[in-house]
């Protein structure tokens, strides 16, 4: 019976651990729903935001819900890439285009 007991104990332990994780996740989600979501919702409301800032590489990924329906290159979310290489290479480096830089406080 020893092995069955050990196995049962392992199963019990890991299911309890999983249950504990799920439960703590619920608790965490509740506190988030109480504090963090309302604050963010307020922020969205005040600034009038429409999209999540997850993918900033192109306008149809930065603002999927606001993207153009159709453009010359069909750059709307879900469109097939115009060139197959698009899935392999990154966006190109545009010559002479502006870049973002900062100036530390107190420096010229």
């Amino acid at each position, binding site marked *: 019976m020893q092995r069955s007991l050990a196995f049962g104990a392992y199963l019990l332990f890991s299911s309890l651990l999983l249950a504990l994780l799920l439960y703590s996740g619920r608790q965490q989600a509740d506190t988030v729903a109480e504090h963090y979501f309302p604050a963010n919702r307020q922020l969205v409301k005040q600034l009038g935001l429409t999209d999540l800032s*997850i993918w900033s590489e192109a306008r149809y990924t930065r603002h*999927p819900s606001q993207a153009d329906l159709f453009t010359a290159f069909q750059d709307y979310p879900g469109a097939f890439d115009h060139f197959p290489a698009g899935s392999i290479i990154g966006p190109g480096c545009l010559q002479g285009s502006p870049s973002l830089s900062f100036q530390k406080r107190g420096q010229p």
Partner: protein
Amino acid sequence: MSARLKILEHALASMARRKQKNFAIIAVYTLTVATLASILFLTQALRNEAANVLLGAPDLVVQRLLAGHHDLIPKQYAEQIAKLPGVGKVTPRVWGYYYDSLKKVNFTLLGVNDASEPPLLAGHLPTSGRQCALGRGIADTYGVEIGDSLVLVDSKNRTLLYEITGLFSHQSSLLTNDLILLPEAELRRFFALPDSQASDLAVQVYNEQEVSTLAKKIKHQLPDTRPIGKMEILHTYDTVFNWRSGIMLTIFSSALIAFCILAWDKATGISAEEKREIGILKAIGWETSDVLLLKFWEGLAVSLSSFLLGTIIAYLHIFFFGAGVLGPVIQGWSVLFPKFDLTPAIDLYQIFALAGLTIIPYIACTVIPSWKNAVTDPDSVMRS
């Protein structure tokens, strides 16, 4: 009942005798479950986040379409829309993009009008001409703080300095990560936008259920516009993450098939020693159904322990270690990717679906091999 327990005991003992083989299967199985579960948990958390946070989005956004793409909208459209019954405030929004060719990031520049303090912002919103507020992602990437200055080159190729007066906190980075806020008047000057036009209009609708009717009316009165309802915004994110997880699951199915082949192979190619063991069991009076039960217990033990372990690993990976391994898959080319601080949104349904996606294939590919082993003749095994 106790007979079944004894068979379980025997199954565990015989598994312990073949540690290496079973360890290999459990390790691969666990990894498979963990990967699948990570995908599910991550996308579900993102879906949940989007659904909850974007509830604050404008009821209706009205864009103008020109030659098939988004164009500036005249401000008199706003007056026309405001006259429709049921419409509250119509706010013209001014925003645009700014590309950094070094970091290859597209920043979003947003004009703000009212200076009342938004939540989750350290410092204050830009008020006078040469001030700005930044998202946390930008501040972290470039290592800047409040008081430093942002250098931008405007549409007339002039270099302009903006003092940073506010930084958004980490908690809002899923929304504000790449955001640069400037006073609206300053942003118009920066992009050289005429005062009579805006990027789009945010329309407040008093009654939520009238949004679609109003959208139709606006479309009818101003045929060159495209109204986007709040529900559509929320749907976009639901489908985006469903699609993402589906695509990843589909790609991942090849790994699942590989795992199935491994399980099939391990179940078919049992050692001579194992065969002899079954032969002896049958010779001392075990029925075929007992041996099948033995195999069932073995499969159950492997499945359950791997499934539980894999799910726990996935949970820790996503919610304690910030989706370190899987993040890049969601990330794509995004350079300024927000740091994940996701809240779990797991329910029994996902655990169920996960079990369906992993345990069933395993069972399906071990059932025939284990039957083959179970019906072996005792004498044929012992004679060989």
